[in-house]
């Protein structure tokens, strides 16, 4: 990276913080064995504590890639196999029918293809046996489709994987995770328990209420495997990405394509622990993370001799948009071409009537009816439904793919329909990588 490239990136981050789009932002780029890092804004705006390049951010679901590494290390060591039924790896789950299904494997959980319904996140305590307790309290986990049929992002699957790691590594997950990062990878800028977060500069999870930044509480410890707990500096996250890329079998199996996602606006596909970007992951893979108030992006380019990687995190509602703005510059800096354009193949449907109706998943109901012009109107309700998904207008691009703008995020996303019956009615709706099934009463 030249000095002017570094200066340009630093400037963009500083400007985003000054303009108030985000509270804190940090970027680290690891290339040719060197890590460069930039930061701006406030790690803690209420307490006037500035963000520094080594500030820890709650990396959210980017944790899943590290959880997956722990699973793959057990597989490579011969202590598990990817096609082992989940119920054999964790017999204590026998009380939950969906998880006791022998067709459901560890590989399905890694690739979000288990068809699991119910992204339960709750506080089951703070102790070392929190995952065992969590597992005893998730009876509501249901099934959206048979294991292996379709992609549907499932946080709970990664918490089950964390429990499997615990059972087969014979250590509480929080210790296995810390041991991997500290002792195997030699990293130090991370924190798992809150008392460890106090020892370093840790960016708070903030949400904006009017002009005020209000801290959100930490995510529950019980969902540690899916990403509610781990905080990490961007230099260490980028270094972890590069170390993973050079780890041989673990990385090659993690980024091996499990599923193609032609109907997704963000990802070309999904591997066994990471999302696949350029070249179906052969050129670029990674993981995004979002917790209350923080967005994280990890990108790993495995091709260069020493693997390059970058990590970006920011606190505040515009975090995703700020990343979108600087990603082209990062790619240019590293000599990685622009993100391949996403364009669905096919023509829009002539008749929108078959799409109407009710689609459901655990805690969420989506009602679709005719909207203005050639659009559909999506209403979201239910205890687990995000209010930002309510009242979206869906514009058809193809039979499967509709485009919509989420005003709260100022972002355009795709939603998709699948499993069309002979009368043209879709059986499944996919919103933000998660499936919902057409309500039974709605099936004719």
């Amino acid at each position, binding site marked *: 990276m030249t000095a002017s490239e570094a200066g340009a990136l630093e400037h963009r981050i500083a400007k985003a913080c000054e303009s108030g789009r985000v509270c804190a932002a940090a970027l680290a780029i690891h290339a040719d064995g060197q890590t460069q890092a930039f930061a701006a804004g406030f790690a803690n705006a209420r307490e006037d504590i500035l963000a520094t390049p080594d500030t820890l951010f709650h990396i959210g679901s980017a944790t899943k890639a590290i959880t997956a590494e722990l699973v793959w290390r057990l597989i490579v060591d011969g202590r598990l196999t990817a096609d082992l039924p989940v119920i054999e790896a964790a017999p204590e789950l026998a009380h939950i029918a969906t998880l006791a299904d022998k067709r459901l494997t560890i590989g399905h959980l890694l690739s979000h293809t288990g068809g699991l319904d119910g992204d339960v996140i709750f506080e089951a305590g703070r102790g070392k046996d929190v995952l065992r307790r969590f597992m005893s309290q998730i009876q509501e986990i249901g099934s959206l489709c048979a294991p292996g049929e379709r992609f549907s992002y499932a946080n709970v699957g990664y918490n089950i994987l964390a429990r499997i790691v615990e059972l087969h590594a014979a250590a509480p997950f929080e210790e296995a995770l810390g041991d991997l990062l500290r002792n195997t990878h030699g990293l130090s800028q991370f924190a798992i328990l*809150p008392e460890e977060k*106090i*020892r370093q500069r840790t960016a708070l999870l903030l949400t904006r209420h009017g002009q005020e930044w209000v801290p959100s509480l930490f995510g529950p410890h019980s969902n540690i495997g899916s990403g509610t707990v781990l905080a990490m500096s961007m230099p260490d996250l980028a270094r972890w990405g590069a170390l993973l890329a050079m780890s041989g079998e673990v990385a090659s199996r993690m980024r091996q394509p499990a599923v193609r996602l032609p109907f997704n606006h963000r990802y070309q596909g999904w591997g066994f622990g990471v999302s696949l970007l350029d070249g179906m992951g052969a050129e670029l893979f990674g993981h995004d993370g979002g917790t209350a108030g923080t967005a994280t992006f990890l990108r790993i380019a495995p091709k260069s001799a020493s693997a390059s990687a970058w990590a970006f995190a920011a606190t505040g509602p515009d975090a995703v948009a700020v990343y979108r703005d600087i990603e082209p510059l990062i790619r240019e800096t590293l000599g990685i071409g622009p993100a391949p354009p996403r364009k669905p193949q096919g023509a829009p449907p002539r008749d929108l009537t078959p799409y109407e109706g009710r689609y459901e998943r655990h805690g969420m109901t989506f009602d679709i009816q005719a909207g203005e012009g050639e659009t559909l109107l999506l209403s979201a309700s239910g205890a687990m439904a995000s209010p930002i998904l309510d009242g979206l207008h869906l514009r058809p691009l193809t039979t499967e793919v509709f485009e919509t703008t989420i005003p709260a995020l100022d972002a355009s996303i795709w939603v998709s329909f699948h499993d069309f019956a002979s009368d043209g009615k879709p059986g499944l709706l996919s919103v933000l990588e998660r499936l919902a099934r057409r309500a039974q009463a709605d099936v004719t």
Partner: protein
Amino acid sequence: MLAPNLTDLDARVAHARQQAGVPGLTFAVSWNAGSVFAASGVLNVDTGVEARSDSLFQVGSITKSLTATLIMQAAAEGLLDIDAPVSRYIPLQLGAGENAGPFTARQLMAHLSGLDGDLFTDTGRDDDALAKYMVLCAQLEFLSPPGRHYNYCNAGYAILGRILEIVRGKTYDQVLRDHLLAPLGAARSTTFPEEAAFARTAVGHVTRPDGAPVLAPPIMLARALGPAGFSLYSTVEDLIAFARAHMAGEDPISPQIAAAMRAPHAELPDARWGLGWKIISRGGVTFVGHDGGTIGQSAYLWTVPEQGLAIAMCANGGRAGMAWESLAHPIFRDACGQVPRPSIPQDLSEPVDLAAFEGVFENLGVAVEIRAEDGGLKAVAVQKAFALPDIIFHMRPLGGGRFRATIGDDDKVVTAFLEPGPDGRPELFYAGRLHRRVKR
């Protein structure tokens, strides 16, 4: 009283901090008419985040004064009788051994239960941590029969915390918040690190051989010992609010509770103990207070109730005791002519049969080996509970089974040998705790 002379307090605090090699320090003085606060240095030498007077520090055993206050509030509401056997509230056999007997909440508050109390087993971070710890307390040995000897007892304060959970029907942390921290307006204080992480919060430091402070190793924060001082993060501002309410007998601390807690209950060789408070009387002045320490952090809260004077200090490493004396003692001396330092008699000149005191003495926390040497006693205290270096010190006889020891730079203690044990040889009282003779 008149306002104390606090000219240049900020400069005095900065100077005292630097002299004592303390990375970060907060200091507060309060008298009838008002309070002043000061801060100097950094909370964490790695991050360089600066200390402010509202920064959180681990205040350690000062928490015991808060726990005792909560017990007295519950008693005033009729929820418990501090003179009833604890078994009325906790239906477990707590403590064992030949000295076992019923003991009361009052005895626990005054460290008079006789229980060997440095049991630092971590029973987890969950809401049931205290309940689980009580099961372990079944095995604690009584070093003396309840009520007979003062013996500083951490486990006893965990038992008090568990009594609060049972009579209030909520966790100790919630009782502390609802009945003391919230009514005092001590909004920053918390027992949860996930809340402390949102504030400016100090990290403890230890001193490297070359004199540089480095972050203390991560320490065990056993939630079960929260009521004894393992959990609470607080500020000098919040400590002063607590002290002021005590001195004034103001909500949420009634005058009756305040008076009962500073009434002497236990005699030490160099001080007395009330309910959750240490009492030092010097030249007609009565000081009431408590010190606190975790590995790498120290806190002090001392009052002169008759004068409405309170001083608090928090420090995160270095020679904190030296900083405390250089800052607080001149203010106390100005106000009342005395300082809260135990009075130590002069060395005795006539000969003493030192051989009678030799032996190995033990409790859960330390093993102390004592040998006669150079007209005094040499002691080597091996820390059993924590990976800390041995403490080696010499004791000079004061007469009456008492000895004077100087430990470290600034810590003068009186060590005593108590009545003979079963074998007719005296038992050791050191660092506020009883020790059984285990070897001749």
